[in-house]
């Protein structure tokens, strides 16, 4: 490659859920497509073209990000946590358990992003109020549940009482 030609690909090294990956990546490739297409980590999803839906939400160096709003090369050297890493030891996390117990998922397509946003919220705010939960999830669209059960699940996962419906 001559010095004048623009770089179209670069080597990227990332750690995803504790495992290291090194890949040659198109510099224009989005982080979400890198995870899904190159690393075959298809747990994180894509629901929009515009950064609105949050289905691709994950943690990059501990910060909640939408991985469709980043290029893969921007994650170089980073430590990524995705939904696949939550139950790393085979045991579901309290958040995953609460989502199931409270019927906070139907089709399950938004769920990976929703779980990552909720997990990130509880790390900084272990007992959020209902308003704080709603704010914490406002970057994630769910088209099945109307959010009520998701909010209940986050409350339950943070050890708070959830009003019974029965």
């Amino acid at each position, binding site marked *: 490659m001559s010095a004048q030609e623009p770089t179209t690909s670069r080597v990227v090294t990332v750690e995803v859920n504790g495992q290291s990956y090194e890949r040659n990546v*198109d510099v224009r*490739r989005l982080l979400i*497509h890198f995870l*899904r*297409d190159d690393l*075959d*980590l*298809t*747990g*994180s*999803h*894509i*629901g*929009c*073209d*515009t950064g*609105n*839906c949050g*289905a691709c939400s994950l943690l990059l160096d501990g910060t909640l990000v939408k991985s469709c709003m980043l290029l893969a090369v921007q994650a170089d050297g980073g430590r990524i946590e*995705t*939904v*696949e890493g*939550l*139950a790393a030891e085979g045991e*579901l996390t309290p958040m*995953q358990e609460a*989502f*199931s*117990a409270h*019927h906070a*998922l*139907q*089709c*399950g*397509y*938004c*769920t*990976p992003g929703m*779980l990552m946003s909720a997990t990130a919220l509880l790390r900084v705010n272990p007992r959020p109020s209902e308003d704080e*939960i*709603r*704010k914490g*999830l*406002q970057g*994630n*669209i*769910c*088209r*099945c*549940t*109307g*959010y*009520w*059960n*998701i*909010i*209940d699940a986050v409350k339950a996962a943070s050890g708070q009482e959830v*009003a019974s*419906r*029965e």
Partner: protein
Amino acid sequence: MSETIETATPVAPEQALVVEETGAPQRGFAGQNVPRKEDKRLVQGEGLFVDDIKRHGMGYAHYVRSPYAHANIVSIDVSRAESLDGVYGTLIGEEVAAVTEPFFQISSPPGAHVKDYALALGKVRHVGDPVAIVVAQTRELARDAAELVEVEYEPLPALVDARRALEPDAPLLHDEAGGNLSWSGIYEWGDVDSAFAEADHVVKISELHFDRFNSTPLETDGALVEFNRGTGQWTIYTNNQFPGFAAIMMGPAMRSGLDKLRFVTQDIGGGFGNKITSHPQLVAICLLARKLNRPIQWTEWRTDFHLTMSHGNERWFQDTEVAVTSDGTLLGFRTKAIDDAGAFLRYEPLGGVIWAQVTPGCYRWKHVRLEFTQVMTNKAPVSPNRGYSRMQHLWFTERVIDIVAHELGLDPVEVRKRNYVRADEMPYTTPNGCVYDSGDYARMLDVGLELIGYDRLDERRRDAESRGKLLGFGIGSTLDSGTNNFAQSRLINPELQFSGNNEVATVKLDLFGEVVVTLGTTPQGQGHETTAAMVVADIIGITPDDINVRAGHDSYWNSHAGFSGTYASQFAVTGLGAVKGAAEKLAGEIKKLGSVVLGCGVDDLELAEGHVRMKANPEAALPLMACGAIINANNAGLPEDLDVTLNARYVFRPQFEVPDLERKYGNLTLTYAAQIHVALVEVDPETGVYEVVDYAAVDDCGKRIHPQIVEGQVMGATAHALGAATYETYAYDDDGNLLTPNFYDYHVPHSMDMPPLRTGYIESPSPFTPLGTKGMGEGGGAGIHAVCAALQDALAARGKPIVYDSHNPYHRVWELLQDPEASRSRVEVVAQ
């Protein structure tokens, strides 16, 4: 936040489905909230959605779409795109037309003459109409290469307003159809003229408008298609939610036998009806898989979905007249519906009859005349969307009720209770011959009023007033008709050879005692694996955990029929009906085998705790594992005439007749779930901004197999309705440009937008279904109706404006406040 109220409505006693006569009756799993079988994989990101599927050497497909609403295609040049390194090939409309037939049209003439192919041919008819597809090694490259396809267009005037479609100078979409009309029909039942002669008041409403939107499932449409050159078979991994319909559309178009089209689905990221009509895309991807001799992957971009897929039916109701007596009894109505189908008829004009499933809504109207006219416009094609076509009509009936009440000074609760079909009239035959199977709408309304705190309404109005707000109260009463009688399509086109309905399930007992269930359905979050396992568990005497329900649909499983899929609120009837039938068949075979092995009569046996055993002596028992092993691998010495395979297939077929086509009279659906919603809104009169401050949703879908799943569906339908009431619209400009082509502009509700919700239910088991269940899930858009009613109530003190549109963003409410007379001019009351 939410609460459920047990009601006094009679509920069928719990069926002790597990036969257990030796001990205390054992309660079945049906009716309990068991953990969903689907959840474990979905909360770990281990679901298998269509975009997750990969094949070696596959190419990514990207569509080239029209930027014009209406234009002739002068030329398409794909050469620059094809010359790019890594581009595998392209497809254009002329190639499609050379190797496929136009899609079969449901409509009678003139809609029957529409020519619809997988890609545009000769002209484009809406922004986003596909003109070419590029396939390349990566998603990014396919997208880049698509930019290099050069299409020369000759723009034509666009038809955007359906009300203008039949004017002589309106732009013409389909020359072959000779005009923009797709279908029209006059429906009249009862004695409408006499009803109007008898009426004390005639309320006239010049025009109401139901807006265009859809449910925007978070996962867009997609497919991965492999073509086997040796057998000529396509394997279509997809998220299409009605493979039975796709097969009917695709086989003749592709000149292919249906066995060459293998449909496979697994996890589907929401459907809501919007994933029924992806057959044009599936055909195009099949053709590319054959042409390019490699697997082809296609995933719609969000913008593609908004531009092209399955918008809901937009509908006008003009020249409405309502006959009312002075005590508030509703005698009848007449109206003219104009339905906007968009550019193509992909499932239409079925919307022209589907509404008739709920002709009188929840009410005892006896005399009805509705002139239905459906036209084509330069907008995205419409297709089923949660509440399909009934929602539009139910919105109309609810709007009419509240406008009548408002104008005649009647109480909206009283006028409903006076006119609701009554519990003691069930099963109730509507003026057009539909049979409402069971229900108690007045009781449901009482539950809703209690949940919302109706007795404190005046107090809350004063409180809102003290804060400068206007409080409004509104009711939405709807029906969710389910299990279609497909013979209703013959009211649209008498030549069609569709009728009845069916669904299939298989239940088998395998070698090591595994019970395996296959379904013909294509669930998108409704929890079919769980509820099917519950029904089987109760019949075989095991637990849902012991049962493997295969995820998704595969037409190679031999567990599908012509109407297989998940749509139109029917799984709890058709799907579970098939599951129950197959499980009972298997139970019978297990007992037959048991009687041979244990040397007793079949009637001496029961299934419980994983065994077939003698009722009189539970020690004399054969484990299911032994049954599976004997039949599958250890069958020497069994009697020759023992007709036991332990592999049971059952087709559920509800009893239907073909309606009287002349009178348009007959039963169109098997069950009628009901939803009564109540909303309280607060409006800021300075700005028109409003908020739903309290909300109650009361549901009756008969026997509930899994109450939590039922409530989840109620919540989802409520959220969709609230989104459509306030935020969601497919707005077009005068040139036919879609102004809301993504989630930036098309605002769906977020977690911050949801009001406090209370839920309630009653259970009126259906007398017509195997489990007493009713199909549910779609709802009837009750939230839209309730918000419209609440807004009209809130604004009443400010000049009594009329809420005339289903979609009421804040600016429209502000307009109603600024100029109430403009809306009031739509309504006139004539005393007789």
